[in-house]
């Protein structure tokens, strides 16, 4: 697999799996309004994943659904941050905030990159992410003095670093006011047990009827 396909799959897998994880809050978010908004944002992330898989599918001569659902768990390239099964709102918002900040750094780099097709898609995704960031930043500002939120951000920080290539990490650290030096990033390629369970559930319907057109 060439480097471009690998990059596209890393991006797409991050968006799909975070969209999936955030969807787990549908129906149980802290308020009704947040529930609707959070679920809607999660769906947007899955929409971004689809657009990225479509680019990767051309590269790999397959289709977006096959890439999203027919690979084995160890073939997914998503960062460990998005795989974590988080059971409380403080951690969930901390992840959303850190991911949005990391994603902003990554999207900025892609928009300036040599790959015109990917730069175009990144710009399109960025227009929607503007509102995701607005949402994440509101929550982060509101919970800033809440110890549970601060602890969650610190706990997830090594995972957040793992979303980005090493050369972009200092930019993220500057944005969120944390340090790269003393932190060992949790790198891509490591899959926790929780991811196997997620993969099992996510692909269940597709596996139940192989080759079916939906």
């Amino acid at each position, binding site marked *: 697999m060439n480097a471009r396909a690998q990059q596209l799959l890393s991006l797409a897998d991050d968006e799909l799996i975070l969209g999936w994880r955030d969807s787990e809050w549908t129906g149980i978010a802290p308020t009704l*309004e947040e529930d*609707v908004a959070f679920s*809607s*944002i999660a*769906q947007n992330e899955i929409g971004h994943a689809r657009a990225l898989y479509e680019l990767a599918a051309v590269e790999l001569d397959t289709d977006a659904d096959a890439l999203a659902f027919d690979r084995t768990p160890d073939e997914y390239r998503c960062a460990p941050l998005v795989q974590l099964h988080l059971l409380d709102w403080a951690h969930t918002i901390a992840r959303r905030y850190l991911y949005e900040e990391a994603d902003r750094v990554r999207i900025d780099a892609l928009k300036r990159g040599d790959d015109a097709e990917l730069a175009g898609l990144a710009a399109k995704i960025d227009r929607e992410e503007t509102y995701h960031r*607005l949402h994440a930043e509101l929550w982060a500002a509101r919970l800033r003095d809440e110890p549970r939120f601060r602890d969650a951000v610190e706990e997830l920080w090594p995972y957040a670093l793992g979303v980005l290539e090493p050369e972009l990490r200092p930019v993220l650290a500057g944005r969120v006011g944390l340090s790269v030096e003393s932190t060992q990033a949790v790198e891509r390629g490591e899959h926790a047990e929780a991811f196997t369970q997620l993969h099992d559930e996510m692909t269940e319907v597709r596996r139940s009827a192989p080759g079916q057109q939906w």
Partner: protein
Amino acid sequence: MVFEVFRQERKGQPFAHAGSVEAPDAAFADAWAREQYGRRGESEALWLVPRDAVHQITEWADEFDLKYRRVDGYSIKSRLKEARERAGTAAPEPG
């Protein structure tokens, strides 16, 4: 805080009350209303109005039962048709 949400479906159309969002402040109301009333591309624009800012009128004085001020009971359809015929203008298409 409760914000009443008014939604404009297409440019030039009047805003119609769509519902409300309960939010701690205007910024959260913006983030939430955006997703709740706009995620399907169903809105051209939204107005968010703090409920407290709405001046409501519910009391009416109609002590003398001034029925002649009301239009119910009057049928002007046939008279309007005659008037149009006299003026030589056709009735507009329905809708």
